[in-house]
């Protein structure tokens, strides 16, 4: 029976040699069963032929973005050593500038004198600029690669590749994040008038609070009118999606429909039917919005520090590069320490240390020199010098972890999925980075997490510096009476740890990964914070993978016990 079927298939597929063909045909004439079998084979082949051309409906937009993000991550990991030294240098340079501002003794919070001329008057418009770029091109006669620091203008059309991603600062100090496989046109990029057209892909926007004529985003037939807010717009063949994490936007869909999308809402307008549906923000969107917010805050913080640090708000050589600040923002610039973490000791007068770690808080912290004290600001561009270079640790990093970090992992190697391929098939080179952690023990209770990042409380002579502080200034005999200038990494780690309780730790995952890959002391903390964040988010598989990575990198690290306990070892 088996060989009959084989030859019948071969007959139907024209695979039979001529001599066999004659033999089979003769046999078929005398064998009704074989004719029935041949009919079954023909039926099977007809069905196969009909099915051969069917193509599954894949929503390529999100898949493109996921693949792009993973490719970017992979290539970034490969090329990391090339820019690590540059980043280290940039951080050290940043230290000098920031220490001058943060560590200088002052009487505490200082309000900007109301008599000070409003900064609005001294601001010079600044063109749109690419803050970070990877796989970014400008669509012209040919695709021109766009690098970080390049200025843009009205009419420029930007396109990111499948592995691309970019951050752009707009003339009104708003910030734009382009996801992979995105094309967006700066239809109008003026100081008081912004219009963007999203042809495909997704952009996340952190609109500034500047007064302006209009800020609109066009995506297909949908128009989004913006006030100060944080939102994203995606334009895919299936429809347009608008998601808001802060504030609200007005969406005009169709001829007369005007909808308001508020914080935490997501609106999807079907591209074919025009039907609108609402939903909640997805982790991927939250991640992207968090990234653009983090970057915007970091840049704005750096710029504002420059303004406040300069007497009368005019740092030489810096003013022309400042964003335009509103009167309200100028008045609101009450200088306060960051959640009790940056308050200098009363009476302490630490001199600025040339070896101190960089300390520019990524969250809009505004500090000022004490009245009457000499200005410690060292000049323009030293707070975040790495921004223009395209790398900045601490700020939500220049990577897209939408798929790997906060997004639900539904890929084949699911929690119950196989962890290895069968040996019969020749295995391709196995990734070294993949960690097959042990299966989740559902009854496993994560250990009570010990605080990883110790807040720099008003220092006392008795209090020993935290491990993170030690890591920030190894070998330096820190005076217990002097506040330790904290690095960007410390600030970021503190924020990340705080977010474990407050919620929203997902937005720190990318930055933590960035720090964790360096293999330094803060990398231990970063890796464990990632694991705890995943535990908090009830994603144990990812948490175990993080713990496994930790043990791989730091088998004798100070969190090794916690990691082993989590992994059940």
């Amino acid at each position: 029976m088996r060989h009959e079927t084989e030859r019948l298939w071969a007959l139907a597929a024209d695979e039979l040699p001529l001599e066999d063909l004659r033999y089979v045909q003769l046999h078929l004439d005398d064998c009704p069963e074989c004719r029935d079998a041949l009919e079954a084979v023909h039926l099977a082949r007809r069905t196969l032929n009909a099915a051969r051309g069917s193509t599954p409906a894949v929503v390529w937009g999100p898949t493109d973005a996921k693949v792009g993000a993973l490719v970017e991550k992979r290539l970034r990991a490969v090329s990391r050593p090339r820019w690590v030294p540059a980043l280290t240098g940039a951080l050290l340079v940043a230290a000098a500038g920031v220490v001058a501002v943060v560590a200088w003794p002052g009487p505490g919070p200082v309000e900007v004198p109301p008599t000070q001329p409003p900064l609005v008057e001294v601001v010079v418009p600044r063109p749109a600029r690419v803050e970070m770029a990877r796989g970014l091109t400008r669509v012209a006669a040919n695709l021109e690669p766009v690098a970080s620091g390049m200025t843009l203008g009205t009419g420029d059309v930007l396109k990111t590749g499948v592995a691309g991603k970019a951050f752009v600062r707009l003339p009104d100090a708003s910030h734009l994040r382009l996801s992979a496989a995105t094309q967006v046109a700066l239809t109008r990029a003026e100081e008081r008038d912004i219009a963007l057209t999203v042809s495909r892909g997704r952009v996340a926007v952190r609109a500034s609070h500047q007064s302006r004529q209009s800020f609109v985003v066009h995506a297909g037939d949908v128009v989004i009118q913006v006030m100060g807010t944080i939102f994203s717009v995606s334009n895919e063949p299936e429809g347009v999606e608008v998601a808001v994490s802060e504030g609200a936007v007005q969406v005009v869909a169709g001829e007369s429909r005007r909808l308001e999308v508020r914080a935490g809402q997501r609106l999807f307008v079907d591209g074919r039917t025009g039907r609108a549906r609402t939903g909640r923000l997805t982790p991927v969107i939250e991640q992207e919005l968090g990234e653009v917010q983090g970057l915007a805050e970091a840049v704005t913080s750096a710029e504002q520090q420059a303004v406040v640090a300069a007497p009368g708000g005019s740092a030489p050589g810096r003013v022309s590069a400042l964003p335009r600040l509103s009167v309200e923002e100028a008045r609101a610039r009450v200088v306060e320490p960051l959640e009790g973490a940056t308050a200098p000791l009363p009476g302490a007068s630490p001199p600025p240390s040339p070896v101190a770690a960089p300390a520019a808080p990524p969250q809009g912290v505004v500090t000022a020199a004490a009245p009457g004290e000499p200005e410690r600001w060292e000049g323009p561009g030293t707070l975040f010098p790495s921004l223009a270079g395209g790398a900045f640790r601490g700020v939500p990093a220049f990577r897209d972890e939408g798929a790997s970090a906060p997004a639900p992992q539904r890929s084949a190697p699911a929690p119950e999925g196989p962890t290895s391929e069968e040996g019969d098939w020749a295995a391709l080179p196995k990734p070294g980075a993949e960690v097959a952690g042990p299966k989740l023990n559902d009854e496993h209770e994560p250990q009570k997490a010990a605080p990883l990042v110790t807040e720099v409380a008003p220092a006392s002579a008795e209090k020993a510096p935290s491990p993170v502080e030690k890591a920030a200034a190894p070998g330096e005999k820190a005076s217990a009476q002097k506040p330790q200038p904290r690095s960007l990494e410390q600030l970021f780690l503190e924020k990340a740890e705080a977010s474990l309780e407050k919620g929203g730790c997902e937005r720190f995952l990318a930055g933590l990964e960035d720090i964790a890959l360096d293999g330094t002391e803060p990398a231990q903390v970063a890796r464990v914070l990632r694991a705890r964040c995943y535990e908090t988010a009830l994603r144990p598989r990812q948490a175990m993978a993080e713990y496994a990575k930790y043990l791989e990198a730091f088998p004798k690290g100070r969190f090794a016990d916690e990691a082993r306990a989590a992994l059940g070892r």
Partner: protein
Amino acid sequence: MPAETVPLPRLVPTPLPGGQVEARLLRLVDRIKNDDALAFEELYRLTRDDVARTLFHLTGRRNDLDDLVQETYVRLLRAIPAFRGESQFRTFLYRVCSNVALMHLRWWRRRREDLSDELPEQVFGGVDPERAAQQAQATRLVHRALDTLSAKKRVVFVYHELCGMGPEDIAQAVGSSYNTVRSRLHSARLDFTKAMKALVQLEVQP
């Protein structure tokens, strides 16, 4: 029919690929080896439809297809440094596909509760609705019949009958010998024919 007296039929080899396409893919591979992300993007655009269709037939599932495509390209990126041009790039790509699909099939077959998942939706561009409906019905039947095959037989059968690969290339793609492939293919044909006949009878019955 005295089967022993007749040798096993010869199988149709893989049609030769378009030289330009293959050369273009190989150039892209060279660039990817130098960490050129844009080259990978181009390769992705060139091959993603084929990969999606192949994975669709290999696994018969739509719900996880985007994840499978994603997994395939991640593995491909890792594997490309080991590609030395000893086979066609398409064969190399199918090898990655088969590894991903096999892993998924074995995992999924341990989760039979997922059987209630909806059958995939298909896109039938440029065909009339009647033909599209026939195609959808045929695809549904084929995938149900393929579900009766073992994972290895299914891969070999799909590569030969739906992807048009010859046994030599399939052997490279799945890392087995020519004779193993041929044996699996013939066995799969037998099982598939049986399953299809039974399915059609079920469809005919009220």
